[in-house]
Structure formats: structure tokens, C-alpha cells
């Protein structure tokens, strides 16, 4: 074994390590797959002040502010998170930075846990930002340091694009020492930092000139590497696709773009002139292909069907030959709410109420799948509240509810609630308050009262904020599906804007304690399967059609017991207070 300090790190961990080595002092993010572990890793370094921000716009601005104030700073989020931060991104390209500032976006071709698969390379072009893209964890660590150098050399935010297969791949990564960076002074400089029209006009001119300089850098940068081998086929690629190309076409000439934007046109032209056939292998949009075509380089790109989903090594031949995609994902096991998850009882009650439910982004999105099927729209963070406002106006406030979690409410539900109150909206909004950010693995948020570093802090009072937003009626209830049923019946007909905060004991990801599993009397079971309709992995219909409980999974929430009309399932608890 050698003396180097080598660790088995994911791309996200390697990114945090590299940024730490580059002297980063501040990191901000909002949780989202596949980016969550970047900020979680930052919390492990004592030299870095790492925060979960309220949402991505806030995270971006706080991080940009740290750069203005003179410390190396980093923002990270999933691809759709960057949409929320687009406003500050676009104008920070004009102002530039003070100390190094890197904007990490983790894209998700294949949308394993996302609502879309947008390609952030297009955002770099739109924003006029340099974009770096590594292919592996070890390269991530190397590139992130270069990203900070580019940021400071060119006075610009740098977009750093990860994808699921880079973020969530682990490999041997060599650790190095941290280089401390002195805090830079913030110089009062309105033409740079005050983006009013007169200043911004000049900064736009400067930005266009900066892009030309960045292109020169890109031409000469070791980030873009031409590997000349066989001259029959030359492949241009970026990110993880480079590794698939190396695997499948070991003899081909390859131009690997590590700095994808601005494009190194001369390097591309030179590479294309040395091979007989040029092909582009890239995931998602035909970003590189279109640029090559625009340059007048005849190249072979993928069939449009390959813009959907992630590429795999076995697809590369098809991509180069322009064949259509055939390997659409087959049926896999559907994800379900955890056993004992408090959301289950809410969705059982909503199903029973037969209301139209506008939902949001979080674990409760799983309530949309049958047999629960009690969530009827999901678009983006916070949209449950705003779509609910219109649902209640046009479908009827007695027939619709909005549902979202505590973290999502704080992220972007509050503005929607103010809007509903201001515009005389009516109906019932449900905030499912489990005190954490569940879907991404239980990160704290302002309503938790704990920081990213695990320190106690001010706790946001959800009921109080709903009240001051203008809700006519705010009520906090604890959980059991009957009480939610009764509450809904009582509140839905009322001509008012109500917020029902359903307060849970903790999310099962945090609270692993189990209550006794219910007792099952097979003799009394009429096989109506109502118990199974709560969609819990701990109770199921076996091959012979009998009800079976998985005692190891069961958390003893008794939601299934409440469904049984024949007394076959009975609570094993003496105390009737469940959860």
C-alpha cells in the first residue's frame, strides 16, 4: 500500500474535498437529488461555513454575497434548483465576483428522482457563463480547483455541471492539503456591483469581451484534451460519456471537452480536420452537435429519441450511427412511503374525502401512485399552494385542497399563501409538518430549528407565519386519519382560507422507533383487501391471496387497522393514542 492519502469518494464528496482544498470558506445549498451530499459533505469541514438555505435563490445570493465580501464561496443544487436561482445568476454574470465563486448544478439525465431532465449546458450559454464538466469523482476534485482559478482570473461565476453518474459514482480519490486564501477587501465600486441600466449596459459590453477571452482560455486549456489515435473516427464528448466512449471505442480519436462553454472552436476545427468521420456523443440536448454544425463541421449526432434518458455504454454505437433509442426503462418496483410514514394516514383520509389535491415536491408525491392515488398535480417546489388557489377558485374551495411539506412550504409556499390571502382565495391548505426535509434524506430546515451543521438555532413558527400571511383560520392538529377526515369535513365548506398544519412525530428516516405491530386474526379476514389499499410495504397480499404482515418492516402505525371493518386486524397497543 502506498503512502498517499486515498479515499473511496463519491463525485459529490470529491467536489466538497476539492473546494475545501481550494480554500473555500462558504457553501450554501437547498437539498435535492443528486446534489444533496455536496452540502452535507461541506458540513464536515470546520473551516467551511456551510448552510442549508431557505431555497436556491436565497442560497445563490447568500453565496454570491460571501464572494463579494471577499471569501471563496460555492453554491450547489440540483438542476431544477438552478431555475429558482436564475434571477441572481443572470445578473451576477454582469457584475462578476470578488473572491472565487462557483455555481454547481447536478443534472439528472434519466430523472431517477426529478420532475424533468433539463440540460444545464444551455443555461451556461444563456447566462454567458463558463461551464466546466468533469467525468469522474477524481476529475471533479481536480476541476473544481480550476473552476475557482477561472472565476478569479476572469472575474466571473463559473458553472460546474455534475450529472447523476458523476455525483453518485465512487472511486479512489487522492486527498491533498488545503490552501488557505486571505479574505479579499470589498471595494466600494458601484459601476461593478450596482446593476442599474447605465452600469449594466457597460457591464454587458464587458461581458461579451470577457467571453472572447474565456474562449481563448478554453482553446489553450488542459481541460479540453484531444487524444489522437485512429483517424477513421473522431468522437467529441463531455462528462461521463467520455468514459463510455473509452470503454466502447478504445481506438477512436477523442476530443474530450472538460470546459464545454465557451467552445474551443480552433481546437474543435483542428481535431475535425484530422479524422475522416466526426461523431458527437453527449447526453440530453444536442448542445455540442449543434455548435459543430453551426461551425460548418459535418458531424454525426444522436437520433432525437436519445435526448430522453441517460446514455449507457451499450447505447454508444447506436448514438454514433444515429439509430433510434430502443431501450426504454422497463417496469421496476414502484417506490412507496416508508412503513410507519405519517403521510400515509393523510392520504388515506384525502382519498376518502374525494377532493382534488394539488401536490408538491417531496415524499408525499408518492401519494399520487395507486392505490392511494390522492394527489393530482405536481409541477415544482411551492406550486401546490398556487395551483390550489386556482383550483379552489374554479373547481370549488369545498372540493379541493393543497398539500405540501414543511420544508417545501418554507422554500416557496409562503409567497403563494400570501398571494392566496391577498387575492381573496378560499379553501384548505394542508401543511404536513414532519420537521424535516424527508425525500432527500432528512435534512434540517428553518421549521426544524437546527442548522446544517447540527447546531440549535431559531425555529420558524409555521402557525404564526400562516396567520400573518393572511390565513383566516390556522389550526395545528396531530395525526390520525379519522381526525383529518373530520377536520376536512368541518373546514371545506367554510367560506374562508384555512391552513391545517398536520404535525407528526418525526419522519421515519429519523425516528426509527417502532410500536407493536397489529394482531392479525386470519379467521376474521373477509379478504376485502382494504388494509392493503394503504400501500404499506409491511402488509401485503401473498401468492395465495391471504393477508400477510412483515413484522420486521412494520412500525406499528395502525393505519391498516383503521381500514379493517371485520376486526381481523387489531391494535396491539393498550393505549389508543397512535404515533
Amino acid at each position, binding site marked *: *500500500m*502506498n503512502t498517499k492519502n*486515498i479515499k*473511496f469518494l463519491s463525485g459529490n464528496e470529491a467536489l466538497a474535498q476539492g473546494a475545501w482544498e481550494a480554500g473555500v470558506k462558504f457553501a450554501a445549498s437547498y437539498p435535492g*437529488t*443528486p446534489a*444533496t451530499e455536496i452540502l452535507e459533505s461541506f458540513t464536515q469541514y470546520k473551516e467551511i461555513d456551510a448552510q442549508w438555505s431557505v431555497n436556491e435563490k436565497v442560497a445563490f445570493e447568500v453565496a454570491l454575497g460571501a464572494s463579494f465580501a471577499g471569501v471563496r464561496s460555492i453554491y450547489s443544487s440540483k438542476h431544477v434548483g438552478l431555475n429558482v436561482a436564475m434571477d441572481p445568476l443572470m445578473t451576477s454574470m454582469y457584475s462578476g465576483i470578488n473572491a472565487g465563486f462557483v455555481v454547481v448544478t447536478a443534472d439528472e439525465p*434519466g430523472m*431517477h*428522482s426529478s420532475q424533468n431532465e433539463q440540460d444545464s449546458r444551455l443555461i451556461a450559454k444563456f447566462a454567458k457563463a463558463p461551464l466546466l464538466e468533469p467525468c*469522474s469523482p477524481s476529475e471533479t476534485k481536480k476541476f473544481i480547483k480550476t473552476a475557482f482559478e477561472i472565476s478569479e482570473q476572469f472575474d466571473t461565476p463559473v458553472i460546474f455541471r455534475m450529472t*447523476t*453518474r458523476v455525483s*453518485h*459514482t*465512487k*472511486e*479512489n480519490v487522492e486527498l491533498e492539503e488545503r490552501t488557505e486564501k486571505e479574505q479579499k477587501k470589498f471595494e466600494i465600486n458601484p459601476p461593478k456591483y450596482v446593476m442599474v441600466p447605465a452600469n449594466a449596459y457597460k457591464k454587458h459590453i464587458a461581458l461579451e469581451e470577457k467571453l472572447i477571452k474565456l474562449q481563448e482560455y478554453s482553446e489553450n486549456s488542459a481541460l479540453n484534451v484531444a487524444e489522437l489515435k485512429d483517424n477513421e473516427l473522431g468522437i467529441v464528448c463531455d462528462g*461521463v460519456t467520455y*468514459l*463510455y466512449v*473509452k*470503454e466502447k471505442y478504445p481506438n477512436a480519436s477523442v476530443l474530450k471537452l472538460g470546459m464545454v462553454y465557451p467552445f474551443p472552436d480552433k481546437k474543435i476545427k483542428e481535431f475535425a480536420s484530422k479524422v475522416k468521420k466526426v461523431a458527437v456523443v453527449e447526453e440530453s440536448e444536442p448542445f455540442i452537435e449543434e455548435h459543430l454544425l453551426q461551425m460548418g463541421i459535418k458531424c454525426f449526432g444522436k437520433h432525437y429519441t436519445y435526448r430522453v434518458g441517460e446514455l*449507457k*455504454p*451499450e447505447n454508444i454505437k447506436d448514438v454514433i450511427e444515429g439509430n433510434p433509442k430502443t431501450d426504454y426503462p*422497463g417496469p*421496476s*418496483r*414502484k*417506490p*412507496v*412511503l*416508508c412503513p410507519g410514514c405519517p403521510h400515509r394516514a393523510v392520504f388515506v383520509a384525502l382519498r376518502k374525502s374525494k377532493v382534488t389535491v394539488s401536490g408538491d415536491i417531496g*415524499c408525499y408525491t*408518492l401519494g399520487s401512485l395507486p392505490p392511494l392515488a390522492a394527489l393530482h398535480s405536481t409541477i415544482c417546489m411551492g406550486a401546490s399552494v398556487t395551483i390550489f388557489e386556482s383550483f379552489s377558485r374554479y373547481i370549488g374551495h369545498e372540493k379541493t385542497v393543497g398539500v405540501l411539506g414543511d420544508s417545501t412550504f418554507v422554500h416557496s409556499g409562503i409567497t403563494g399563501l400570501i398571494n392566496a390571502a391577498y387575492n381573496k382565495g378560499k379553501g384548505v391548505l394542508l401543511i404536513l409538518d414532519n420537521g424535516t426535509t424527508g*425525500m*432527500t*434524506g432528512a435534512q434540517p430546515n428553518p421549521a426544524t430549528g437546527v442548522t446544517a451543521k447540527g447546531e440549535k438555532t431559531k425555529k420558524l413558527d409555521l402557525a404564526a407565519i400562516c396567520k400573518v400571511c393572511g390565513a383566516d383560520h390556522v389550526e395545528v392538529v396531530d395525526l390520525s386519519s379519522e381526525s383529518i377526515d373530520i377536520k376536512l369535513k368541518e373546514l371545506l365548506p367554510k367560506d374562508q382560507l384555512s391552513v391545517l398544519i398536520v404535525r407528526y412525530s418525526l419522519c421515519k428516516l429519523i425516528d426509527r422507533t417502532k410500536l407493536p405491530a397489529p394482531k392479525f386474526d386470519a379467521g376474521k379476514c373477509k379478504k376485502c383487501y382494504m388494509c392493503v389499499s394503504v400501500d404499506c*410495504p409491511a402488509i401485503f397480499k401473498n401468492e395465495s391471496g391471504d393477508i400477510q404482515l412483515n413484522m*420486521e*418492516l412494520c412500525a406499528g402505525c395502525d393505519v391498516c387497522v383503521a381500514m379493517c371493518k371485520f376486526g381481523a386486524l387489531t391494535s396491539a397497543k393498550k393505549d389508543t393514542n397512535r404515533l
Partner: protein
Amino acid sequence: METINILFCGTGGQGILTASEIVGRAAMFDGYHAKKSEVHGMAQRGGSVESHLRLGKEVFSPIIEKAQADFLVSFHKGEHDRMADMLKKDGVDLLNEFLQADKDISDKKYINTYMLGVLSRYLDLTEESWLKAMTEVFKGKNTEKNFEIFRAARANKH
């Protein structure tokens, strides 16, 4: 060593990612390049879980190509059947070993350790590295019991 492709599959909560992590680290301790790839998030709410692990001198792709897995380590019959076309023609399928372990081992949390012991019979990795990787990943939890189960499964020649 030629690149070895190991595909782990099953459902959320079975310790699949943990098992894959241990093999990856053990290979790294023995001087190999290891790459492990998986997806997080929605996929782990009781849904399908798969972890691709590739070991060798220099590994490129983080994911295993269809029909190129040398080993299929499944923790679930249904998931095994779904992933069966990932296995090479002459690849090693450890489903029977899992089914046996599922019958024999009452404390299900040790099944992944048992499967690691079975897998270790086929891989040229030192016992020292296996144990070091397990100690790190299990963070010292039930270390002796895990070692015992691992060693028993490793010694059980077919």
C-alpha cells in the same frame, strides 16, 4: 486483474449499497481502481436498488454494460429476474446462495455480510482488506459478529 463487473440488486433497506461499498473499499485497499455507481432518492423508498461495481487496473465506465456482469448478487428473486439480462453468458449468479441465506439466517441484517463472504471466494482480494473495509463501513457496529459470518461464508467451499 482484468476488469471485474459485479452487479448488486434488490430492494431498499437490504444493505445492498453497504455491501457494494465494502467490496469497493476492499479492492481499493488492495491497490485496484474501483468504481461504484448507483442512484439515490426516490429509488430508495422501498423501490428497486441496484449498485454497479467495477474493479480493475483502470476502470472507465462507472456502469456495467448489458450482459457484461461477471457476478449478479441479488437480494430479491423478482429483482434478480428483472436484472438477469445484465449477467454475462458464463457469469456467476449468486441467487441460490441468497435464497439459502434467507432461509438460514434469522437476523436479516447479516445477509449482506454473508453474501460478501460468498462473493469473496471468487475475488482475489486479501482477507485483511475485506475486514478493514467492513470495519470502516459498519463503523465498528457488531464487528465480531460480521467477521464471524463473513469468515464462515468465505470458508464454505462449494
